[in-house]
């Protein structure tokens, strides 16, 4: 940590030669959610609660300092959550962990892929949970056609909103009710802007782990390229080693006259350390179209092979499941009011999940959102824990931006 800070200070000192510009921004949100439990979660997974309330207050403060071709940017995320679901009460076998629904309500609950720099704090006590994390802190230097970054950074690319397999560095947030949140990744990035049509980003990052892992850091070596083949056609390619697997894939996106179509394919090798594992394939197809000036639709469908050697609790994905189709609609019924409806269907089991949101902008920097999440049809897959856990929720959020 001290080393990182010293390096930052040295880099700043070396680069200060021009006018300094600063910018601060952020958002604060209060959220209330009323939730009804899934019967299967009660019976099969010991989630013995019926209905409960969940409250959350979170905020981001983003700061940026620019000098010449250099920039330092940081984001501090804090979240305070309260619900009886954090405190299930003891059984005859002893204390229990918070109910699993709290993990869904606080999704994304992992805001740093691997906390190499130890910049997060989390405390859970009785009915309360507090998280505070510096999930972005990096130094960036632009030099002619190159960009160098060091620190904790967001890595965001790929067209998938429900499923985005070519980008393992950020979870798609279509399922979450929080806004302005992304996952930080610790390491280095070097971007080479080859020409107007071609960009390559090389990444050397830490790995990704479920909470509380302090063991050896497995490297992530990754290259992501974007190539504009023609006026209508863009090709993205990815290649590298991530989560102890070799991965290779890409995305093709094509501009039709009135829509954007895209597809992604990602191949993942078996574990490079010879631990028992499968080869994996992920596939996505998507269609995005502005139907009218007010109505926008998006379709995504895909396949993701699950590793048969992983037990369910180690699967990183919540939804979608193995085969899925999703349809998202956004309709602007008023310049200040947007309706958003997304339905995701697991083709194999028949499970369907509906997300609805109505967002109203009031004043210039505030908005209120009413949201609902519901499993609209039950699946027939007895092994799928995620589908058993999904709750039915309605909620209200008020957001302010500064």
């Amino acid at each position, binding site marked *: 940590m001290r080393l990182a800070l010293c390096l930052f200070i040295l880099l700043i000192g070396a680069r200060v030669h021009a006018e300094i510009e600063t910018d601060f*921004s952020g*958002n604060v949100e209060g959220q209330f959610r009323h939730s009804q439990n899934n019967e299967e979660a009660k019976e099969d997974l010991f989630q013995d609660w019926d209905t409960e309330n969940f409250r959350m207050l979170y905020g*981001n403060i*983003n700061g940026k300092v620019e000098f010449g071709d250099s920039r330092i940017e940081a*984001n501090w995320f804090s979240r305070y959550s309260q619900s009886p679901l954090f405190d299930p009460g003891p059984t005859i076998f002893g204390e229990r962990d918070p109910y699993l629904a709290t993990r869904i309500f606080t999704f994304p609950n992992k805001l740093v892929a691997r906390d190499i720099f130890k910049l997060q704090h989390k405390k859970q006590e009785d009915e309360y949970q507090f998280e505070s994390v510096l999930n972005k802190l990096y130094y960036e230097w*632009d030099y002619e*056609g190159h*960009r160098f970054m060091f620190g904790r*950074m*967001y*890595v*965001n*690319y790929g*067209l998938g909103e429900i499923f985005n397999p070519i980008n393992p560095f950020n979870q798609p947030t279509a399922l979450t009710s929080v806004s*302005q949140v*992304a996952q930080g990744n610790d390491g280095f990035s070097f971007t080479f*802007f080859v020409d*107007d049509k071609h*960009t390559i980003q090389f990444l050397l990052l830490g790995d990704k782990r479920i909470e509380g892992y302090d063991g050896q850091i497995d490297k992530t070596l990754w290259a992501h390229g*974007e190539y*504009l083949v023609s*006026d*209508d056609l*863009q090709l993205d390619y990815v290649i590298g080693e991530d989560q102890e697997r070799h991965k290779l894939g890409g995305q093709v*996106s094509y*501009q*039709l*006259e*009135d*829509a*954007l179509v*895209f597809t992604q394919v990602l191949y993942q090798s078996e574990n490079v350390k010879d631990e028992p594992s499968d080869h994996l394939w992920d596939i996505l197809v998507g269609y*995005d*179209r*502005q*139907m*009218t*000036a*007010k109505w*926008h639709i998006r379709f995504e469908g895909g396949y993701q092979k699950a590793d048969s050697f992983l037990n369910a609790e180690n699967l990183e994905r919540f939804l979608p499941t193995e085969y899925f189709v999703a349809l998202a609609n956004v309709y*602007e019924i008023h*310049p*200040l009011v947007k309706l958003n409806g997304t339905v995701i269907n697991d083709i194999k089991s028949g499970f369907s999940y509906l997300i609805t949101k109505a967002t109203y*902008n009031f004043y*210039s*920097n505030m*908005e209120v959102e009413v949201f609902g999440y519901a499993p609209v049809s039950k699946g027939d897959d007895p092994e799928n824990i995620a589908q058993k856990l999904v709750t039915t929720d309605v909620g209200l959020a008020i957001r302010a*931006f*500064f």
Partner: protein
Amino acid sequence: MFKKLLRKDFVLCVALGANVNNADEWLKYAEKQMRGDRSRAEMVMTIQTPNWTRTLEIESDVEGKKQALSTIKSPAKERGIRTLRIENNMWNYFPKLKRKVAVSSSMLLASWMGSDFTNDDILKASSMAEDYHHKFSSDEKVGGETYKVIENTAKTNSKVMWPKIMTYASKKDCLPRIYKYYDKEGKLRRTLTFSDIKTFDGHKVPTHWEMVPEDDKSKKTVVDYKDIDFNVKFKPSHFSQKSLTDN
């Protein structure tokens, strides 16, 4: 004095190519004046309805017909959001999440930030002079002034939103004062009026624009240009992915 100015403007616009008998020349002249070869504009957009008003500040860089980069300066929720257009390709960039998203070209017809303007209007994707055929219609008198009326019909191979636009141009300075936009059914959908003409770097530009949708005349979107720099020099990489993602 006023008569002298009028005469000077008229002579100037004719001399610059707005041949009084050629509708193409009128449109070319107007576009040359208002767009130039490249420009950086600072504007304030106000979306007005009977019940509320919303204001956005925007910086818009344009070079030719093929390249545009717009940045929202305020309000806080949208501050820093950028849109880059290179030919038919368009990307949005959300700096707080470092997220760049390729946008379907169909998004050009989408409302821009809830306003009565579209992405196409903001990014100046279409060119009245190049994408439309032009012919004169009968002169019309509106609000005490008689305008030269030009009917613009979309060329068959051009990717434009509006199949027909009627231009009402002032005979005093050859610049447009009204655009009327018609849909495929020939129905008037919206009207854009221009006023408060000012000169920036030798270019005469209407600085007050009002867009009124025909289906709800109680609302409108007003754009006020605060400054336009037609002599701006963009770096060769200005309209690029690097530039899009450097804020």
